[in-house]
């Protein structure tokens, strides 16, 4: 009898998010972040003279009415803007405190608190908006409100803030009362798109005593920060109360700066258009959906199997929003992966392709996602402007490249390359000793979709490759600590005939394949990653070589990844950039560094009277203009 243990109801989601966001480097930006691409030049202030998507056709200034109530599944750990790493809490903070900038539905940079500009991508100038004030007694928001926290906290070695990694090696300097500049170690034209320079304003007065004492506990626990008492005119709402178990409540901020902001259209001149707002923590999905149905909540996410039902419900307006966050089957290529026998087969491209071929993505999308997901063939969603095109990308797990035949063929290729005598005995895959190949697959506990996908993968691999999978649920935090990350050690290894040194190992890439986490693991569905359709260059952190910043699975590219990313980085024209990215994504699709499964859409139900939400990843960027129809 097999034993499996699990703990952590609903905890997985949070960690998934945290993982994505740790790569984003920005906190809570997910709700505000825009979608694909950029012209590669300097960001410009967009022209908002015309209609605003989602709010087009709104002629008159809306009236202020009602409260905007939403429900969420997980409670917030902290609302301290300096330390929050959860997207749910990011949304809760965002109601009362804006960040530096956002992107609109046309992927254009939109300044909120500061405008960013650059000539060469190396020196970026930040211009802080006029008329921003903190609550008394902290005064006006100026350059110092950002520079001080960057220099004294993010770049310090004691404060360990959430944004610390974003500012490593960046030289920040105040150049005027409301202007400062940042000098990057190497030019980055798409810096804002990486969300690294996205900051909250924090009054110097709050921080000073802690900075003097290097008191990290005090800073974490400061009530001004936790209760967002300094938010002044910087957010659409004022936080009334954070009831730790129940959520947050807000009242309208009559002074919201966006009312007078010149780059926001007249539509926003009396924003926000709700008397108040609330976010309720409701753990039971059935209750969240009930609240959406009865109108107690104005917005809630809906599982795929209920989408059509709610879509047909006149009391709910459903939105299907494509996401850049993927669902991947990670295979451990390090020394503590592949525990079925000697020689890690995951290290062969052909074997990873065999796995991708064995798992049918059509049935996965139809059965698990009910068709509400995009196929995932390369490290970019098909709607991204950087997607190379269906003709170029090799597809696995669909059409000719799906099923037992092609999967076994690829696996046999891998067996031939392996020094060990793996093979098929009948329809079972067996080790050199003749034993059944059995592997573990982990998924986050408490996440129904994850479990379903794990069981689906187990069955497909059993049917098509004769591999037995042991499905195990695990708490996301535990998986992250004991399986996914390891103590950075560094070292050297020979990759594609060249000696590679790990100079700056991180917990997510602690060294060559010989450096392993505490616990052995074979396969995992616990974490999904961001594919960065807005700035695919950020993906270099995953793939620009064996010693990339983030490489928990121990993937060694067999193509010149570093060179291709360098080509993209130094591209002079958009065509060059697109060509370089196309090469990268074709190679990644071929090599399957992570076995790519699908991009699940975000399915959100709204109050049908609500005006503003759009079916785009940028949904929410213009939230201050959202309102109820008369």
């Amino acid at each position: 009898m097999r034993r499996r243990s699990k703990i952590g109801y609903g905890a997985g989601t949070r960690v998934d998010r945290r993982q994505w966001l740790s790569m984003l480097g920005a906190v809570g930006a997910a709700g505000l972040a825009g979608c694909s691409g950029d012209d590669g030049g300097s960001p410009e202030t967009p022209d908002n003279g015309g209609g605003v998507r989602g709010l087009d056709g709104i002629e008159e200034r809306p009236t202020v009415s009602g409260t905007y109530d939403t429900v969420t599944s997980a409670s917030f750990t902290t609302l301290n803007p300096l330390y929050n790493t959860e997207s749910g809490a990011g949304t809760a903070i965002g109601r009362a405190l804006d960040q530096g900038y956002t992107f609109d539905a046309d992927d254009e940079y939109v300044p909120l608190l500061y405008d960013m500009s650059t000539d060469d991508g190396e020196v970026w100038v930040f211009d802080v908006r006029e008329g921003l004030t903190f609550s008394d007694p902290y005064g006006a928001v100026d350059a110092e409100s950002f520079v001080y926290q960057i220099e004294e906290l993010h770049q310090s070695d004691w404060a360990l803030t959430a944004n610390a990694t974003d500012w490593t090696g960046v030289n920040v300097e105040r150049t005027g009362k409301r202007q400062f500049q940042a000098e990057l170690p190497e030019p980055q034209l798409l810096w804002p798109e990486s969300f690294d320079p996205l900051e909250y304003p924090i009054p110097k007065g709050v921080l000073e005593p802690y900075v003097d004492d290097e008191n990290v506990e005090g800073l974490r626990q400061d009530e001004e920060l936790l209760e967002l008492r300094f938010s002044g005119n910087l957010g659409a709402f004022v936080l009334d109360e954070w009831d730790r178990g129940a959520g947050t409540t807000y009242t309208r901020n009559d002074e919201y700066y966006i009312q007078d902001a010149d780059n926001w259209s007249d539509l926003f001149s009396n924003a926000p258009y709700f008397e108040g707002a609330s976010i309720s923590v409701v753990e039971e999905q059935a209750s969240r959906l009930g609240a959406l149905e009865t109108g107690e909540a104005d917005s809630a996410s809906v599982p795929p199997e209920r989408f059509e039902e709610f879509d047909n419900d006149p009391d709910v307006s459903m939105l299907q929003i494509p996401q850049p966050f993927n669902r991947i089957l990670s295979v451990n290529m390090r020394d503590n992966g592949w525990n079925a026998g000697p020689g890690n087969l995951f290290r062969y491209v052909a074997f990873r392709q065999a796995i991708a071929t064995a798992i049918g993505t059509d049935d996965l999308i139809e059965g698990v996602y009910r068709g509400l997901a995009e196929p995932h063939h390369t490290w970019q969603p098909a709607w991204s402007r950087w997607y190379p095109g269906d003709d170029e990308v090799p597809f696995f797990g669909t059409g000719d490249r799906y099923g037992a035949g092609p999967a076994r063929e690829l696996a046999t290729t891998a067996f031939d390359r392996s020094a060990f005598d793996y093979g098929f005995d009948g329809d079972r895959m067996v080790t050199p000793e003749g034993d059944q190949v059995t592997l573990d697959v982990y998924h986050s506990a408490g996440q129904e979709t994850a479990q379903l996908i794990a069981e689906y993968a187990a069955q497909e691999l059993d049917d098509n490759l004769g591999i037995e999978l042991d499905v195990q649920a695990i708490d996301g935090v535990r998986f992250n600590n004991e399986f996914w990350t390891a103590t950075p050690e560094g070292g050297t290894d020979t990759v594609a005939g060249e000696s590679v040194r790990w100079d700056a190992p991180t917990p997510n890439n602690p060294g060559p394949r010989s450096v392993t986490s505490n616990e052995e693991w074979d396969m995992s569905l616990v974490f999904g990653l961001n594919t960065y359709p807005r700035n695919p260059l950020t993906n270099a952190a995953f793939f620009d070589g064996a010693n990339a910043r983030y490489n928990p699975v121990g993937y060694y590219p067999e193509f010149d990844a570093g060179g291709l990313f360098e080509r993209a980085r130094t591209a002079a024209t958009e065509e060059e950039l697109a060509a370089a990215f196309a090469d990268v994504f074709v190679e990644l699709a071929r090599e399957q560094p992570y076995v790519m499964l699908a991009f699940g859409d975000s399915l959100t139900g709204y109050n049908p009277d609500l005006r503003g939400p759009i079916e785009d990843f940028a949904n929410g960027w213009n939230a201050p203009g959202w309102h109820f129809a008369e």
Partner: protein
Amino acid sequence: MGLARYVVLRVVWAAVVSLVIVTATFVLMAAAPNPAIQEAATQAALEGGDPQQAVERERELRGLDEPLHVRYLDFLTSIYTLEWGWSDHRSQPVTEALVEGLYYTAQYSIPWTVLTVLIGPLVGVYSAANMYSWRDHAATAFAFFGYAIPNFFFGIVLLLLFGVWLDWIPVVYRTDVAVFSLENARQLALPVFVLVTGSIGAVMRVSRNESAEFRDATFMKTAKAKGVSPFRAYAYHVMRPTLVPLSTTLVSQLLAIFLGSSLLVEVVFGIPGLGRLTFEALVAQDTNLVLGATFVFTFVAVIGNLLEDIAFSVLDPRISYDDR
């Protein structure tokens, strides 16, 4: 040895029990891997710092570099001086978190306990007095139904029925309504009903079966023969001896449901009480909060058992505390 002395000894013992349990919890937690340290190492490494140094720093900060017995003594001191530390998971002091949780838990626990204690024995004794009548059968059926239906299952079904389909009660628990208001009564009606249904069955059964034994006892016949009114006879001669064995069931039943089912009911109905708080703290490995909550639950259990024991001695004069 008199009753007073017995009570004092019993109270002292209760304190000892709490100590044993808190110690066991400390040992278990000390054996658990501490994620905070891991986090510090991760952070330091991300910044290009020395992870080893960061681990040392974090250990020092949390006092984990001290020998185990020193940590244990520090721990005991802080527990008994109510310095329960900071909850990382909720970003507030542990005591504040517990008080907040208790505030919501008490709102449904008090009505539920009172109703169970009042209705359970009365219905049970009434059943016994009218044994095998249709009333007894109805009460028995209700008792069995309540006891057999899983609380959380019943809760979800009722919430679906009355909250979503009939729209009589709110689906989302609101914390911003006054305690003594109609809204609060409406949103608490279902959780209280579910819990009473769950806890009353066993109490009714035990009191029915126990009182059935005393009902036919000679002293009842004597009382009846003497012309004592049935009510008085039941109150004095059946109720009281029934309460002796019942007290065990009652307290353990209430405690079991308090420690177990209330957590589920809180999850189902979205009440941010003590149970849900504990559960979330465990999942998040918020050591301080887990310990604090354990201590509160232990305290409740120890006090409950203490009261039960004292009640046991007072109610049953046949068992002399001199012997113990």
